[in-house]
């Protein structure tokens, strides 16, 4: 490739050409010199003023909320409550992370909540009936269930979404073979069922061409009904299993907490510094080294403080000891890192952004738009299944309302509050985490202040409205600032 480029560059040196190409490269001077800290800060400020807010409003909101609730409530800023906060917010955050993929295409998945309820019910049924889903569901329901899994496999293969097909196949095998209950197997089953649901949703949206709003609105009702059917009116499926219980309620031990700290901060520093110095080496524009180091340092200090606080004993009584970083923290971190990696560093992620930005341009560039559109629904539903595992684990049971109510709305809210655009093409996974934190703090803090549910709902709704307005206004600003 490089030799071809070199020859191409040479051909431009015709007599009519006044400036040789090497001279022209210096025209990108701004790209080749490294910025000073002041320039980098000014650059960032200019982007913010231009309407590229990112997650800045959500971060500011987060800080304001922390200050307000700490001053109003004595119990808010206690270790026990902070850990509780993380565990409460985790499931919403995880579902929101999956939804970010869908929102990036400018689509919506209203069925993610009740779909997560379906995965939770299947998981609980498998556990309670010791792997005998046929007995747990009854003949007809079981055969329909298996038929849907087969359908999902066929659709995924048709669209060449191999991961979706493989996960659906695993779900089918687990269901048919009837392996005895095992917590890990149940959780795998939940994720696989989630993927299968996503294959069906995605196919209807991408290939059949029904607007995602309608498809997922219909499926929202369907899956709600399925949950009722699987659990039975008024019934509750208890999840009596230590492993599943620990997902949302357990903590890493002292050593584990600090190992997590070292791995997370060390990994972040390694990735950021490697990229930074490789850019500097190749003479590409990079942020000033001091700023990069300051960022890493700030993150390390913050993480250390949190890890230290969480590794103290936070039990309300002297009889027991509760300490360590909750398991949901590494879970969310891993999903965040993997998802961000996929979006930022792989062709697939690039194509997701491209389809979200300009579908026609993506098609002309040779991207299989339908496949991308279907795949995001598979990701969203799989993530919703992980969220379902967490919220079922938190309460220790699955009831007919699992995933219904405001699970979905809060998840979409989390993604949007964090700065993901509803218009598509703009958003990052960390938006979901920040937005999830904002919502968790509102719910938790208002609860501690003994506010009635009515007020909590109204405040949550207003915050979402505010976030959506910020999105729409910053978009308008970006459009006018463009030319």
């Amino acid at each position, binding site marked *: 490739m490089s030799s071809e480029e070199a020859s*191409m*560059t040479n051909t*431009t040196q*015709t007599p009519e*050409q006044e400036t040789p190409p090497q001279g022209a490269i210096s025209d990108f001077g*701004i790209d080749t010199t490294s910025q000073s800290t002041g320039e980098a800060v000014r650059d960032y400020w200019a982007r913010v003023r231009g309407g590229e807010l990112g997650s800045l409003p959500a971060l500011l909101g987060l800080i304001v909320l922390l200050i307000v609730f700490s001053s109003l409530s004595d119990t808010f800023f206690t270790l026990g409550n902070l850990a509780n906060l993380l565990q409460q917010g985790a499931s919403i955050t995880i579902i929101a992370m999956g939804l970010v993929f869908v929102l990036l295409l400018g689509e919506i998945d209203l069925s993610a909540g009740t779909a997560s309820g379906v995965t939770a019910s299947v998981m609980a049924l498998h556990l309670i009936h010791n792997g005998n889903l046929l007995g747990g569901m009854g003949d007809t329901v079981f055969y329909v269930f298996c038929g849907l899994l087969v359908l999902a496999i066929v659709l995924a293969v048709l669209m060449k979404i191999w991961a979706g097909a493989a996960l659906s196949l695993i779900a089918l095998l687990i269901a048919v073979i009837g392996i005895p209950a095992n917590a890990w197997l149940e959780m795998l089953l939940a994720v696989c069922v989630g993927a299968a649901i996503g294959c069906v949703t995605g196919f209807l949206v991408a290939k059949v061409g029904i607007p995602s709003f309608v498809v997922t609105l219909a499926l929202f009702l369907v899956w709600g009904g399925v949950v009722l059917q699987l659990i039975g009116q008024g019934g509750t499926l208890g999840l009596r299993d230590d492993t599943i219980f620990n997902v949302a309620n357990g903590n890493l031990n002292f050593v584990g907490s600090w190992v997590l700290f070292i791995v997370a901060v060390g990994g972040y520093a390694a990735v950021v510094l490697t990229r930074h110095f490789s850019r500097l080496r190749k003479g590409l*524009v990079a942020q000033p080294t001091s700023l990069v180091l300051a960022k890493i340092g700030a993150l390390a200090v913050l993480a250390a403080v949190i890890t230290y606080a969480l590794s103290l004993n936070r039990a309300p009584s002297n009889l027991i000891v509760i300490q360590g970083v909750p398991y949901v923290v590494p879970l969310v971190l891993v999903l965040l890192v993997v998802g961000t990696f996929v979006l930022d560093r792989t062709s697939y992620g690039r194509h997701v952004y491209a389809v979200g*930005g300009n579908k026609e*341009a993506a098609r002309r560039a040779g991207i299989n738009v339908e496949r991308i559109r279907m795949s995001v629904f598979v990701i969203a539903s799989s993530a919703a299944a992980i969220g379902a595992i967490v919220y079922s684990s938190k309460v220790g049971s699955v009831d007919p309302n699992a995933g219904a109510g405001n699970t979905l709305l809060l998840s979409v809210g989390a993604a949007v509050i964090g700065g993901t655009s509803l218009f598509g093409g703009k958003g990052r996974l960390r938006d979901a985490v920040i937005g999830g934190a904002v919502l968790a703090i509102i719910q938790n803090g208002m609860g501690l202040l003994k506010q009635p549910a009515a007020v909590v709902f109204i405040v949550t709704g207003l915050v979402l409205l505010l976030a959506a307005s910020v999105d729409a206004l910053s978009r308008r600003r970006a459009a006018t600032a463009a030319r």
Partner: protein
Amino acid sequence: MSEPILELRGINKSFGPVHVLHDIDLTVNPGEVTALVGDNGAGKSTLVKCIAGIHPTDSGEVLFEGQPTHIKGPRDAAELGIEVVYQDLALADNLDIVQNMFLGRERTKGGLLDETDMEQAARKTLASLSVRTVKSVRTQVSSLSGGQRQTVAIAKAVLWNSKVVLLDEPTAALGVAQTRQVLDLVRRLAEQGLGVVLISHNMNDVFEVADKIACLYLGRMAAVVGSKDVTHGQVVELITAGRSGDLGIARPEAATI
């Protein structure tokens, strides 16, 4: 000039009962700008779409580098090295210049995007085209002007080592200075040895950059003339009436019945 890089012989195309292209012959030489002019509905865009593989042709031959080829779809055209820059730009607003230039053909290293390599290649290509208006190759396309966008779309074609570039009204929506930039760029494409086909309505643009003018009149190739051999008025007559003096389609009354 060397042998033509793209040669069309007797291309016919109908949409149902409407015969849009009649026996079109056209040769595109490397290093030359061929302007394709004609009134609205003369078949310019259809011809371009036939070459790009978007529409299949009914009959006729397409020779690429002297070899007969069958272009069945846009991918075939792209593989041959035929690149089309569309009127409505095919760029994603939310991506930056580098990301757009490599869209659909990202360079990867070990399964991951090789950002630095792509950025360097994009910069080199823009520099080779003497594009000076873009401050940074990491600028988001949404913040570029119309001319800059057009520049990026054209540079994309160069980056992918195309041999023939078809430009569908690249200056239609641009201001004076921006038109200037794009026309300079079109000229440089030809200087790099590419075959360039430029569709335009603007006679000034055509006379400024084209070596050869092909006039379509109601789906027929009225005349292919050297831009230095004709006047402005003659080309306008060719476009509006299909003939100008000795040039163009013979008068109907002269044709034997």
